[in-house]
């Protein structure tokens, strides 16, 4: 089997208007890239929502693969807006192929 390296996979759920702010932070943390996935609906403390792009009330999921240090730097960079803007951030270890890039 090909060689793999261990990296952090970070997933951030954010209001769609905030995506740019999050991806700018990823770029500034010198992480090699990011990928945004659409989200259809959800529910949290404010009750349920559907994907209502018409009202800008929808969310997106931003996913990024980074080394442990860069991931930590990203979390620190985002910390001021994590609570205030209601971001949901999870991360875990993954094996990556072609991992040198990350």
């Amino acid at each position: 089997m090909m060689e793999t390296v261990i990296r952090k996979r970070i997933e951030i759920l954010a209001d769609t208007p905030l995506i740019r702010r999050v991806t700018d932070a990823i770029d500034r943390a010198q992480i090699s890239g990011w990928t945004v996935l659409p989200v259809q609906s959800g529910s949290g403390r404010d009750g349920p929502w559907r994907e209502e792009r018409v009202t800008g009330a929808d969310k997106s999921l931003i996913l990024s693969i980074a080394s442990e240090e860069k991931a930590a730097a990203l979390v620190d960079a985002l910390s001021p807006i994590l609570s205030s803007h209601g971001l949901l951030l999870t991360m875990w270890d993954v094996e990556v192929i072609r991992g040198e890039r990350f």
Partner: protein
Amino acid sequence: MDAATIQTFTSPVVLFFILGLFAAFVRSDLAIPEALAKGMSLYLMAAIGLKGGVAVAESGLSVTIATVLLLGIAASFLLPLSAYAVLKGFGRLNRTNAGAVAAHYGSVSVVTYVTAVQILELSGLPPGGYMVAVLAAMETPAILSGLLLARGMGSNSGNERSEMLREVFLNASVVLLLGSFAIGMVAGPNGFEEVSPFFAAGFKGVLCLFLLDMGLIAARRIMSARALTWRLGAIAIALPLVNGMIGVLAGTAIGLDVGSAAAFGVLCASASYIAVPAAMRLALPEADPGIYLTMSLSITFPFNILVNIGLITAVAVALGGPAGISS
């Protein structure tokens, strides 16, 4: 007014809105794919922008237009002040939420405007084409004044503020409305003719489906609303009533024809549920969308569509009288 009311409730446009409300209340799973809803909203903006521009290309620019543009900008900037006072006092909201909600009521709702135009046209009172430019001009000043109310001057870093301003003034609906308006002015009636089967003939049908979706969204939101008090519900009806009257009076005072005065009243009465919520997510994330979206979308919007447009039209007719109709 009676006739206008009846026309309101036999127009497919309004009936589809009611169908949407109904379907959501009985918990049907009816839903419009949101890519389509987004597309319809872009279509509606492009179409009214074009038509407004063509109308101005035909009628030419006049002093009235400049006056009503300024009046619109002033209204958008100032109406949040009174709203803020009521929301903080009677409504018991904190500063952040009061400012966020106030911004919505100073700004405008494109679909409320479009629906009003349909009803005014059916009543033989089409508003001037330049009102589309007023609509676009009123979208954003309210955002600034709402933010000032919520946070005072200078709480943001300069960098963040300039980014914020850019986003506000170049938001999609302003660019599309003004852009299509300009295209309409350049292309003129001849150029418009080529595209009128799409942008003119199809308009009301698209509006039907769009209002069906708005009805679904509005009703679903209020059914899952948690943060709404009766005080806020009352304000969400009082504000469009009062702002609508202010708008009609001011519009009549500066000499607008009846249809345009009514349309201006509707703009003042309407509350944004697209541009402003998006701006609030960025600039006032602590404000609760459960409050501002529910008020503007689930109470004020239906109230305007079903009741207030008719009222405002009646008042405009009463004020403008036969003279107004002549213009």
